[in-house]
């Protein structure tokens, strides 16, 4: 099939590294290649570049630059936050509170701790994927050492009441971590108003390169390292710094923060157009919260059909998207997020996630709105589950 259109609507998976970000990174491969830990002058420019990037990240998050620690990405940041706190505070208590809809970087980390004797409470969510602050408060025990709740969900885009949860955590003197990987560049993120002690970010979700991220660690917080070795990052995260990546992260977050409010307004308009259009398809429903959701996230269920088939047919029409169906993963379980929202398995298999980006245009949305109904109808005509009145043949 000929691909006249190439429409990328999987920006929650990753984004294109912005050309300006690439330009900022390039000198740090072959020109300023020095090891930032070295003393000589060619290393100095690497060191300066890292500290400049740190200032940019700190500014974007409302943090102090000494509170920003560079990592290899969101997964490492989540692992470090949780394991580092479990290790440093495990003597005080062995109970951790998190939610049923966290990213696997959090869920699989706490599951590993469960095997090591920690007790984990997985808070439920309502039908919109929202965690209630009351449920957090009720779950707190004398031996609770950490609460980890994501800022915005990667699949359905629901934005959590993190500020309130942070207040609760602080009033109980419990450490609070938030995975903000999906939120940066989309909604305001301020570590002070959120009352977080730890916050994970990842560069490639907002126009930066893959393989680099950061963990905000509130000043004075005791946390053990995840990686041991050299004295980099205030002796807390060993390993020669990924200088080009860190420079890219700094450039990307500065850019994302500067354009955020304008971009968010544009995304919301496009999102509304897309959601309204898709919901005209019979037996379709929006997943996630109608208003408290990331400006770029659309997640829809179509009854009677399966997600991978939808993706394959969209791909044949030049549209890149994502699904919560098990059929795209090695496991046979559909999305844990959709199941946690109370969807039955059969419906969770039929979800389509479209996540817009800064390059998305109204024409793209209109093209997608032309293609999706055809694809859905084609698969419904093929499915034994489709009732007669929804068949065209």
């Amino acid at each position, binding site marked *: 099939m000929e691909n006249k259109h190439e429409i990328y609507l999987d920006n929650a998976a990753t984004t294109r590294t912005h050309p300006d970000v690439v330009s900022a990174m390039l000198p740090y491969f072959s020109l300023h290649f020095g090891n930032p830990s070295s003393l000589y002058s060619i290393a100095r420019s690497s060191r300066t570049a890292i500290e400049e990037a740190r200032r940019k990240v700190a500014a974007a998050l409302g943090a102090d630059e000494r509170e920003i620690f560079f990592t290899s990405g969101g997964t490492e940041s989540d692992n470090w936050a949780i394991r580092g706190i479990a290790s440093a505070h495990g003597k005080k208590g062995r109970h951790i509170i998190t939610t049923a809809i966290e990213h696997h970087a959090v869920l699989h980390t706490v599951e590993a701790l469960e095997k090591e004797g920690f007790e984990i409470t997985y808070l439920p969510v309502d039908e919109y994927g929202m965690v209630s602050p009351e449920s957090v408060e009720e779950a707190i025990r004398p031996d609770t050492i950490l609460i980890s709740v994501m800022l915005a969900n990667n699949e359905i885009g629901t934005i959590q009441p993190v500020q309130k949860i942070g207040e609760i955590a602080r009033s109980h003197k419990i450490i609070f971590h938030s995975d903000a990987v999906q939120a940066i560049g989309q909604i305001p993120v301020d570590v002070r108003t959120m009352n977080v002690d730890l916050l994970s970010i990842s560069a490639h979700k907002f126009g930066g390169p893959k393989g680099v991220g950061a963990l905000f660690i509130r000043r004075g917080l005791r946390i053990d390292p995840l990686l041991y070795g050299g004295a980099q990052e205030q002796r807390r995260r060993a390993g020669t710094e990924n200088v080009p990546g860190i420079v890219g992260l700094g450039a990307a977050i500065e850019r994302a923060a500067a354009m955020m409010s304008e971009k968010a307004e544009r995304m919301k308009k496009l999102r509304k157009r897309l959601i309204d259009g898709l919901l005209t398809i019979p037996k379709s429903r929006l997943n996630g919260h109608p208003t408290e959701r990331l400006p770029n996230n659309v997640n829809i269920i179509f009854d009677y059909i*399966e997600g991978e088939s939808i993706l394959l047919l969209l791909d044949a029409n030049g549209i890149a998207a994502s699904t919560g*169906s098990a*059929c795209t993963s090695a496991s*046979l379980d559909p999305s844990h997020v959709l199941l946690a929202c109370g969807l039955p398995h059969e419906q969770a298999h039929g979800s389509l996630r479209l996540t817009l980006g800064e390059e998305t245009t109204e024409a793209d949305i209109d093209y997608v709105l032309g293609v999706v109904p055809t694809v859905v109808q084609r698969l419904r005509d093929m*499915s*034994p589950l489709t009732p007669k009145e929804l068949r065209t043949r």
Partner: protein
Amino acid sequence: MYSETVMDHFNNPRNQREIPDADGIGEVGNQKCGDIMRIFLKIHDNVIEDASFQTFGCGAAVASSSMATEMIKGKTLEEAWEISNKAVAEALEGLPPQKLHCSVLAEEAIHAAINNYLEKMGLEPWEEGEGSCAGCSGCGTD
């Protein structure tokens, strides 16, 4: 991830229709797993004259159904019964390991449709051989 043959059968499924006056209909799989396959047979003189399918499922499930119906057309019931999931997967030039259960479903759907016909004819259904689910990670439900 998929072979050209799988993509061809997914994009241009053969025999994708309902046979309203089918002599045998077999439905296998469940919605929970994300795959349901229904196979229709038109049988004359112990020979499958026509076969068709309806499928809810992924690309591999659709392609397996399409290929399976192609493979059983013109075959005797005995010949069709012997077509294994492995033969379906091979005809598709292979399936990714986590998708092998889709070809297992195709084999099971053929068996279910043949048995449905036999029962309608007042005959004993044939018994499943062993290991039809071999090589399948399964969907966690029996």
